[in-house]
């Protein structure tokens, strides 16, 4: 007598968790989140007398209208892609790397240290600088990774707090021991003697290829290696992975360190390819924006390529329109709203409404069930149930 409800009215729908979310829905929901965020922020800016959409239109015309603007966008997308990959990798394992900002800075810091203090032929030095950048990012995640893996200390807070330490450290060296004495107004190190070669006459350097290779490698690793499979399983259900005998702790440690190394390489590319001088302002919130890049891409390395370009355009718009009332801060606020909407959207896609199938029984059928299951029920009561259940 499962759905035999006498007095209560049953709403014929219920909310149920989906087993899996289709890809198109994931994409749709994220696009909607971006759109909604713009509408909401645009509405508030309109109250303040700023028309966000005409401003953005102007910005995009300025950015995409000529080759210089496109180059700028690609160059901005490069660090975002690296930090985005770094966060996405951890995300796959249900870990949060909020410290990409610091790892990025320390990667650049180590690269600068090597570039300023050692001499050698350019190709050799570039390889060493690359390794130094990776090592810097890796070292900066070492403590959070170890304490998370072995003592379960919240990695969100530890990685985040190290960002502040990284900024102080880099600032100290950039305006202290390593300061360019010939140009003291810059508050930065001297121009690095080694830089990544550029393509022909453009500003584009070979550093823009590294993140794309990294994205493809990560995607392949997730898709078709044992390690990638283990990471996916541990990310979805750690207990299942443990029961299956997977080396959960080793994998967690590996993923966090690798994630730090990727962000560190991003910093190294930025300082040797684009900026050429280390300063405390090297990272334009790239580490934080990387979280949004990864969240919008749902942790997929290939999708990170596209979302990083989207965010690069947005960030560039903020930089281009500094004078007209838009600013990097506005862009960051917009990104915050995007992130909240994307999270809401993602949550909604995980549930769907299911119609509850209630077998429709007639009064007579109910009565039969009643008589067969409870023989000897007083006539008056049977009559009552019959009339009530018919309602």
């Amino acid at each position: 007598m499962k759905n035999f409800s006498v007095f209560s009215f049953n709403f014929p729908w219920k909310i149920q968790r989906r087993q899996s979310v289709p890809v198109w829905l994931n994409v749709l929901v994220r696009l909607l989140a971006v759109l909604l965020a713009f509408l909401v922020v645009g509405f508030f800016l309109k109250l303040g007398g700023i028309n966000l959409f005409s401003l953005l239109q102007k910005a995009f015309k300025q950015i995409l209208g000529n080759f210089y603007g496109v180059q700028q966008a690609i160059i901005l997308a490069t660090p975002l892609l690296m930090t985005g990959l770094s966060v996405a990798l951890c995300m796959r394992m249900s870990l949060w790397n909020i410290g990409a900002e610091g790892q990025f800075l320390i990667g650049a810091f180590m690269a600068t240290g090597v570039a300023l203090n050692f001499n050698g032929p350019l190709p050799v030095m570039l390889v060493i600088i690359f390794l130094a950048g990776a090592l810097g990012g890796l070292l900066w995640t070492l403590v959070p990774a170890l304490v998370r893996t072995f003592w379960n200390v919240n990695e969100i807070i530890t990685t985040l707090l190290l960002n502040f330490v990284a900024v102080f450290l880099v600032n100290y060296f950039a305006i202290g021991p390593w300061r360019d004495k010939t140009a003291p107004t810059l508050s930065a190190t001297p121009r690095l003697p080694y830089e990544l070669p550029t393509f022909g006459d453009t500003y584009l350097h070979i550093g823009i290829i590294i993140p794309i290779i990294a994205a493809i490698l990560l995607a392949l690793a997730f898709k078709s290696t044992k390690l990638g499979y283990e990471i996916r399983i541990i990310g979805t259900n750690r207990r299942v992975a443990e029961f299956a005998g997977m080396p959960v702790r080793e994998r967690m440690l590996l993923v966090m360190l690798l994630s730090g190394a990727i962000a560190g390489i991003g910093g190294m590319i930025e300082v040797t390819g684009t900026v050429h001088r280390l300063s405390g302002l090297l990272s334009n919130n790239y580490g934080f924006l990387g979280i949004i890049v990864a969240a919008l891409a749902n942790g997929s390395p290939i999708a990170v390529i596209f979302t990083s370009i989207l965010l690069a355009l947005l960030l560039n718009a903020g930089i281009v329109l500094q004078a007209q009332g838009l600013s990097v801060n506005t862009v960051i606020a917009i990104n915050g709203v995007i992130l909240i909407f994307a999270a809401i959207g993602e949550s909604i896609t995980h549930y769907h409404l299911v119609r509850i199938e209630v077998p429709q029984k007639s009064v007579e059928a109910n009565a039969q069930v009643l008589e067969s299951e409870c023989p000897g029920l007083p006539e008056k009561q049977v009559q009552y149930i019959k009339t009530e259940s018919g309602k």
Partner: protein
Amino acid sequence: MNSVLMGVLVSAISAGTVIILAALGELLAERSGVQNLGLEGIIAMGAVTAILAESRIAPNPYIGLLIAILVGLILGAVFAFATVTFKANQVLCGLGMAFLGNGLSAKLGTSISGLPAPSTFETIRIPLLAEIPFIGNLLFNQSLLVYLAYFVFPPLVYFLLYQTRHGMHVRAVGDNPATADVCGIPVNKIRFIYTCVGGAFAGMSGAYITLAYTPSWVEGIAGGRGWIAIALVIFGAWKPLPVVFGALLFGGVTSLGFVGQLQDWAIPSAYLSMLPYLSTIALMIFPVLLKGKNLRRISASPAGLGQPYLREG
């Protein structure tokens, strides 16, 4: 030497106040099962709106405080709407809220950046108690928010959580929402309310920064205090009194940096500025080291923390 110690203590108490206010609010929210990582953004918004309210409405710190609390409440409600009503991922929403608060506060504060606050909280001298040598002047000649942070809110939160039926419900909701729901406790209502309360506390903490601690606004004034508050909730094992202790400890380390700068210690000030962040990380690891393999302290976290609750049938 005595004056150095005194200086450290004085500034430790104010530095601790900022953290205690934010951390107690976060503690309440986390006890009900919602981890609001957007604390940093809410503090920044509270800080900027408090000083804006003073310069736009009236140069009265209490008006600034009120507006900051209101703004914190609203942002807490936005966060609760996303995470409690729509069950969105709390980490993502928290980061989103941190970005939103940091970006928006910087945008709002451009016109008043670097200017001193029109008026600040006056100190209220408690008669008799303030006459106690050494600690009297230190503890009982402070502004309203300091008294609230050290003497009123911690016992109040303790009483609410551990001595009332309602507090038991809050803890039940945080530990096991499904069971609480079966017992007829309105899970999502309690979570929504306490997330808003947490936001209001963070707003208050922001107001204390700009109206008493460093009475002016500059971009990035929150300086990671929101994150440190969250870390101290973890250090304090989600109990109000250890959180206060942790905040004081943090305040002491912070003020060591200030004093070091004033006294021209041989350590570069950049390293002293790192101390609060490094010591917070140490504080997070410390309880684990203390207990070794005994993981009781870690599992002190509310069992349902960070997990949205939806009645599925």
